[in-house]
């Protein structure tokens, strides 16, 4: 593993809200948003590592943080053996020659007030390339170089004096790629480079990226939300969810036998452009991605996971357990309003049985039996009495899952998945936390 081009260890990027002078005057405590929460991976020279996830999972932040376009809150990034976060400004400038980035939005990534020629030549100018020679010949050299780069990405060199708005989205993306190539980097972060493009143009740009990688021996970090694109272009893939990597593995293996329930759900959700897809009913993940301001304790995915692990001593089927866990989450985020339930069940607020019945029909999407029904009804009884805290606690005591007390992280296996289902193997390492207890105490 020593020959990795890039080594990311426990990378953390938190943003802080309520962090202004006024906030400190008002004595408001700053609030952290955990955009990237301790992720580790390596990239080998010449490979393409895909980083996929839904919006807000921290994939773009990861790309920008490891290039030090944003300052990390913790962890380390080694590029070619050197620690990127400890570089001084000269070393950093040298690093920028080797590591470049291509952005998602072809409309905002080019300065509208500069010509294409100036845009592509700018990196050369910043780094004083070429060295020596007079100003006049330098400028000409750079212009020639910009023309060459433009042709390399499939545009014509006689367009150097045009402005960005005269180009289509696909052409602008090519220009952005030419700019990134100008310094002849080894490594390029491709931050959703084709998401904004139409499919026919997207395919052109993907092919271009493929060709450039072969010609220049480039290493890519390919950030995307589109799984089909990732499958097409990447050698290995890391799947992110709420600031964590949940699964990391060789592309074909990960797509053909996904391990983590989130990866499985993602793959299941993608609409396939074929007739076999017609009428396919996807078992969609329920709910929304939780806020990174207050992420779930333990496994970040447990609030939506269809395979959440019940406590050892509880005999319960998955659907019922999921339904109970959804009720617990609803209680935590405040989606259960006892007033509404009373109103529908018994406006006089005496008939607790009716309340429990109504609450179950509204908030528990499964038939409950035996011990489970007993525990849930006790909790709903507390809710009926207006003691939400006690209702939550009752449910927690009986139904607390290992998924919420301990946080899994990807282990050292070739295809690790950060999920308690794989506990005991080297696919997952578990971070023991008492987050859950802390959160319960907060409430």
């Amino acid at each position, binding site marked *: 593993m020593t020959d990795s081009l890039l080594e990311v260890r426990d990378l953390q990027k938190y943003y802080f809200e309520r962090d202004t002078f006024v906030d400190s005057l008002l004595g408001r405590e700053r609030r952290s948003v955990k955009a990237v929460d301790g992720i580790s991976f390596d990239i080998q020279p010449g490979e393409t590592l895909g980083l996929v996830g*839904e*919006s807000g999972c921290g994939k773009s932040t990861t790309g920008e943080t490891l290039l030090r376009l944003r300052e990390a809150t913790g962890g380390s990034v080694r590029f070619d053996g050197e620690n990127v976060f400890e570089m001084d400004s000269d070393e950093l400038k040298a690093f920028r020659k080797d590591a470049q980035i291509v952005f998602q939005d072809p409309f905002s990534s080019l300065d509208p007030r500069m010509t294409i020629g100036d845009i592509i030549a700018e990196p050369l100018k910043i780094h004083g390339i070429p060295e020596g020679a007079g100003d006049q010949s330098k400028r000409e050299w750079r212009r020639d170089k910009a023309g060459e780069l433009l042709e390399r990405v*499939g*545009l*014509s060199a006689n*367009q150097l004096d045009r402005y960005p708005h005269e180009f*289509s*989205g*696909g*052409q602008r993306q090519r220009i952005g790629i030419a700019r990134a190539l100008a310094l002849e980097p080894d490594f390029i972060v491709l931050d959703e480079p084709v998401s904004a493009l*139409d*499919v*026919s*143009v*997207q*395919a*052109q740009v*993907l*092919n271009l990226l*493929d060709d450039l990688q072969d010609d220049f021996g480039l290493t890519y970090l390919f950030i995307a*939300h589109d*799984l*089909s*694109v990732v*499958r*097409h*272009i990447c050698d290995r893939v890391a799947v992110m969810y709420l600031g964590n990597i949940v699964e990391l593995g060789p*592309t*074909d293996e990960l*797509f053909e036998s996904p391990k983590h329930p989130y990866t499985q*759900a*993602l*793959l*299941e*959700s*993608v*609409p*396939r*452009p*074929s*007739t076999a*897809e*017609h*009428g*396919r*009913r*996807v078992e*969609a*993940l*329920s709910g*929304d*991605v939780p806020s990174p301001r207050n992420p779930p304790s333990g496994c970040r995915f447990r609030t*939506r996971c269809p395979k959440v692990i019940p406590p050892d001593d509880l005999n319960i089927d998955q659907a019922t357990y999921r339904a109970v866990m959804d009720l617990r989450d*609803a209680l935590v985020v405040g*989606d*259960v*309003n006892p007033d*509404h339930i009373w109103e529908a069940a018994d406006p006089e607020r005496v008939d607790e049985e009716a309340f429990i019945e109504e609450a179950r029909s509204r*908030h528990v999407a499964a038939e409950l039996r035996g011990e489970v029904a007993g525990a849930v009804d006790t909790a709903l009884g507390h809710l009926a009495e207006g003691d939400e805290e006690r209702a939550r606690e009752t449910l927690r005591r009986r139904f607390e899952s290992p998924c919420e007390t301990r946080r899994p992280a990807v282990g050292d296996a070739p295809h690790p998945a950060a999920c308690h289902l794989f506990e005991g193997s080297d696919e997952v390492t578990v971070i023991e936390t008492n987050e859950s207890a802390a959160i319960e105490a907060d409430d």
Partner: protein
Amino acid sequence: MADPILKVRDLTTRFFTEEGQVNAVEHVSFDVEDGEIFGIVGESGSGKSVTALSVIDLIESPGRVTDGEIWYRNETLADEFRGSTPDAVDGDFVDVRRLPKGVRRSLRGPSFSMVFQDPMSSFNPSLTVGEQIAEAVEVQRRARSNPRSTRSRTQGYGLGKLVADTLLPSQRYVSDESMDRAVELLDQVGIPDPEDRAEEYPHQFSGGMLQRAMIAQALAGEPDILVADEPTTALDVTIQAQILNLLRDLQEHEGMSILMITHDLGVIARMCDRVGVMYAGEIVERGPLSDIFDNPVHPYTQGLLGSIPDVDDPSTRLEPISGNVPSLIDSEMPNACYFADRCPNAMNDCLTRIPEYELDGRHSVRCVLAEREYDPNDAIDTEVYADD
């Protein structure tokens, strides 16, 4: 097969901008059958959204629907206008474009309604979600009690109302009855705890929830046809799956027809019964899903399908369509097949406007390849067109 609910014929929409006349939609024809999902797929600038807006009469200046007919099956309307405007009536169908403006407007809601791409900008940030859905309910309620009154929407506004609202700040914007219905609708689209959520503002909703709310709003008038313009484009795939499931459930339970506009062939494949592929303002190929996906005739359709990386099968190389999406400015459009400059199979026959060929009763295509085989000897020099 029953009569379709909607027959669009030769729909043409133009925008008269300072850069010139833009032919956004050119002679577009399609049917939407009762209870089906008809999909229109195309890249950006292909005119698919303008087609949707034209159908529900939401084109604004400098744009105008300049030609074409939109036949909508509605017996009541047909009976009503058979005497006064016989041109606008054909059997049970009425040509929406020939109805008086007020009547056209009253169709929005009970006949057609629309779901837009960006739920965030489709809600007013200063009113609660419930109020906004209830307002849609209220508009429909008034329209029903006073059929096709052009004033239906403006009632309840005006100076008197303004004064009353100012003096009585606690007065609700909408009636309780409408609010109850709004909560019901929110419940129907799967929003948890709808009573509370109805009181919240759009920024308190996630993107997926807001899209559900917008669908609830569109359902307020119990429409015959729901026009969904890229309803899942702004959403993540797991949320997209939820919304697509919801749309299908609603379509099955309510018996609506859906006109689905999207750029995503995967969404088309999952949802639609029949498809129209748009390119440069025209429907270049139209037919049942299986014909379009398994036997595409138009080289553009083929190119589009060849451009998509397959999530289940990583083929080594994509086969993209060369070149760029063409300009729709009238003066820059060739008197030829609009796709000829990017087409791998362009022949001399393509240098004229191509009519729509019927392959069989259900599959039609705007390409000479419907009539003849590709002949390399007859190929035109595509370099003539090459712009870069």
